[in-house]
């Protein structure tokens, strides 16, 4: 009997689904689970609310009296009525609690053999660890297969939130938190490779990063679901977003992973380094145009003499850059906080080499004169998870 409630409400909600919907698209098994409970509570709440408001305004109009009139009645209690309205609604609360707890236990019961991905959250970006040094900010999963996320934070508390999947879990530094879900609606490939190449070329020209919101597809051409950080984490909390792409089959996913597994032999290290800069989180703290962010800008950094917080100075040669990536707290650039996490074990030697080449391509001492004001020093990098 009770089981008919979910079905009936889901049907009702589907009928009325439109642009006015209260929810983002439903794309995981949890969505239908929790949406009907939401609608059930909303319907119950609306019934009570409408009754209360009718009584409230009804009484206010009906019993509005001129000053000086006496009330029609001075009844001040009625134990039966009071017990009924105290205890009666409790049964509805028990129903809400029961289905809510049941749905919650589904969130907590991770199925055996779920596809396991690492998630590394940091100020302010995401690294999804697909193994074998493939770490990418986008979360790619397979439709119809349970995916388990093993999550850790490098700094403060973050929270991984995918509205379309109706899942959320805090990511607390110093411990692993887990979540799982089963995506149901695969992403579509909505841009051709040609279009993508043109867009990428345009971005490279203007030094822009990929605009997911404007384009509504990923650099690989897939439609996506939003993934947000939901726990306040500082300056760029609201930019700590990435996307979820749902592949139709495991083969599709593996093909996508392979594409990002290492530098294609045809690509120059500097150009690959730029991709790592975009993808691995370097850009959230290091600008390439001289702007001072959380970390020093990479513009005109390589080869320069850099003042350190300790009062000494150091030449930003390859070894200094490499050290700053792997052990960022060894030498702190003057004017910056020692907040960068280490990328040891998360970048291959070729990745580090590519990044250094990219930094060098942004201007080396002597190559471009001009501004000498931008203070810099520390490392650069990217993020990732290595469980």
């Amino acid at each position, binding site marked *: 009997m009770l089981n008919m409630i979910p079905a009936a409400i889901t049907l009702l909600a589907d009928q009325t689904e439109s642009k006015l919907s209260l929810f983002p698209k439903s794309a995981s098994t949890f969505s239908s689970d929790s949406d009907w409970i939401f609608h059930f509570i909303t319907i119950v709440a609306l019934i009570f609310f409408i009754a209360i408001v009718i009584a*409230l305004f009804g009484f*206010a109009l009906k019993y509005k009296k001129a000053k000086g009139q006496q009330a029609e009645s001075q009844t001040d209690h009625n134990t039966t009525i009071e017990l009924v309205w105290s205890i009666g609604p409790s049964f509805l609360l028990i129903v809400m609690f029961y289905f809510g*707890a*049941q749905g919650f236990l589904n969130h907590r019961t991770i199925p055996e053999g779920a596809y396991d991905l690492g998630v590394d959250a940091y100020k302010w970006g995401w690294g999804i660890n697909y193994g074998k040094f493939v770490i990418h900010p986008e979360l790619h999963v397979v439709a119809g297969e349970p995916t388990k996320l093993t999550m850790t934070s490098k700094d403060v508390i973050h929270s991984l939130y995918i509205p379309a999947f109706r899942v959320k879990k805090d990511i607390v530094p*110093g411990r692993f938190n887990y979540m799982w879900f089963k995506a149901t609606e695969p992403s579509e490939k909505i841009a051709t490779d040609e279009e993508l190449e043109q867009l990428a070329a345009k971005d490279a020209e203007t030094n822009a990063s990929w605009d997911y919101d404007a384009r509504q597809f990923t650099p690989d051409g897939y439609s996506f679901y939003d993934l947000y950080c939901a726990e306040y984490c500082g300056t760029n909390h609201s930019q700590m977003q990435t996307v979820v792409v749902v592949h139709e089959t495991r083969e599709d996913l593996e093909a996508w992973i392979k594409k990002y597994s290492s530098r294609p032999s045809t690509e120059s290290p500097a150009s690959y380094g730029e991709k790592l800069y975009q993808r691995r989180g370097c850009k959230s703290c290091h600008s390439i145009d001289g702007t001072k962010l959380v970390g020093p800008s990479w513009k005109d950094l390589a080869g320069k003499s850099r003042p350190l917080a300790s009062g000494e100075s150091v030449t930003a040669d390859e070894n200094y850059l490499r050290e700053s990536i792997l052990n960022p707290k060894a030498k702190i650039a003057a004017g910056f906080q020692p907040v960068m996490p280490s990328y040891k074990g998360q970048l291959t030697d070729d990745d580090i080499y590519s990044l250094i080449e990219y930094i060098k391509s942004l201007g080396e001492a002597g190559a471009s004169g001009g501004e000498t004001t931008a203070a810099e020093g520390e490392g650069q990098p990217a993020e990732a998870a290595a469980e």
Partner: protein
Amino acid sequence: MSVGSVPAGYEVKDPGYPTPEENYLTNSRGLLTWVFTLDHKRIGVMYLVGVSLAFLIAGLLALGIRLHLFAPDGWLFNNEFFKWLAPDKAPNDIYNQVFTLHGAIMVFLFIIPSIPAALGNFLVPVMLGAKDVAFPRLNLSSFFLWVAGAVFFVMALLASGLDTGWTFYTPYSTTTDTSVILATSGAFILGFSSIFTGLNFIVTINTMRPPGMTWFRMPLFLWATYSTSIIQVLATPVLGITLLLLIAERTMHIGIFDPEYNGDPVTYQHFFWFYSHPAVYIMILPAFGVISELISVHSHKRIFGYRFIAYSSIAIALLGFLVWGHHMFTAGMGSMTTIIFSALTFTVSVPSAIKVFNWLATMYKGAITMTTPMCYAIAFIFLFTIGGLTGLHLGTLATDMHLHDTYFVVAHFHYVMVGGTLVAFLGAVFHWWPKMFGRMYNELGGQISAVIVFLGFNLTFLPQFVLGSRGMPRRYATYDPEFAGLHAMSTWGALLLGIGLLVALVVLLVSLVKGKKAPANPWGAATLEWACTSPPPFYNFERPPVVGDPYEFGDIQWDAASERYVKIEPKRETVPSEKPAESPAHAGE
């Protein structure tokens, strides 16, 4: 019975007190007589001015938040003016500081002391027919602690701001370079102010009730104040300890909360919410008390279900201690713990619902006068009902997984804190204003302010429920373009709400200059504070008032001739004689 005349067989009972020449506002003059006053009424007025200033500042910060969120990439703080004002701060940083200070000032400096400290100080002793609170010096010191706490917040603001959110979550708060220590010291000091006030009221209500005022003949405002005080005394020390530990963690790296030193950040959340959830009831319980008074007085009808309302205040105070975990449903507590917290959360919704039903039943068959306080009381019931019912979506675990930390939560608690506490506070100020300052305000102006506040508030926060259920996370300085329309609506609503509040302020201030002189009992209420003159004299009562039923309106009559409410009593057949010896037979006695 005709309107506005004394019914046959009754006569006006003239208390026969002389109107005192001086009242508490005029009996001594000069700034120092205020600074060193021990008079609970003056302390209440100073609190009223203080919390209103805090509200003004925090309200302007709220407008800043809404104006920044006018556009998806941010609007207000992207302005050149802010680049000039704070050249080393990004617009995101300014936004984060503004929402942090908005929350911290509203919670610690406004909502918590608003009704209990400002109005409670004024009303508790007069409602008891007493001259003052039990410990007048403690009372003054709690006000100065409030001022000291406020000064710390201002210093934090001027030093390097605060960007942790009002919750000071670790390890963010132990690592940020903003003024966490100044702000937490401020909150620590404000905690003592709150404890002192609570302690004072508990002792006052326990020991100073006049003969005849049993527990169940107290006005419900006193029940609510009493319940609030219990929470203040029991829960606030935990906040104090937590904030001290946080300061120790930041300065000495002990390793309690920060994982870098083997601490656990979730422990901090438990500690913090063990205070801050009960604090939610510190904020809302006094509002319940105010609404119980307002609805009954302006419906001229006995409060319905007195005992249920009184008991539900105590039930809320106690259950409120057991539900803090519902702020942490997604933090990764054990499954069983989480489920138990969800179940307890549902139990706390029952006593709140009881009160709403009781208020409606009080209005039923009443004689409702649509005064400004009544308009605010009706707005309160409407808004608080929405706030309460949307709590069900959040207490239910499966749906909370989606809604936690989204705008749905923001809308929910603003419906409770602003739609509830602030609206009740405004209703209370309009209700007791004639008593506090002896002046009537322009009734139409007050009613207009209530309508604008009501409309503006709904326009601000209803869209935020939809934003939340569609997945908009809270504390975002920028957002995806799909949310732009609803955010813009919310911003327009905030401006309208601001106008409504401004109208209320103007109406009240104008009354001080132009208002008609207020009679002792302008609303026809039966509680004791209306038995003394408006404004009360320094010593409150000429002679100890006769304690009656606080909700007995049968013997209070509007006298059209003198335009005031008078107390009537059955005409006596014979006049009691001054000299019993000469008296004839007492016919009919």
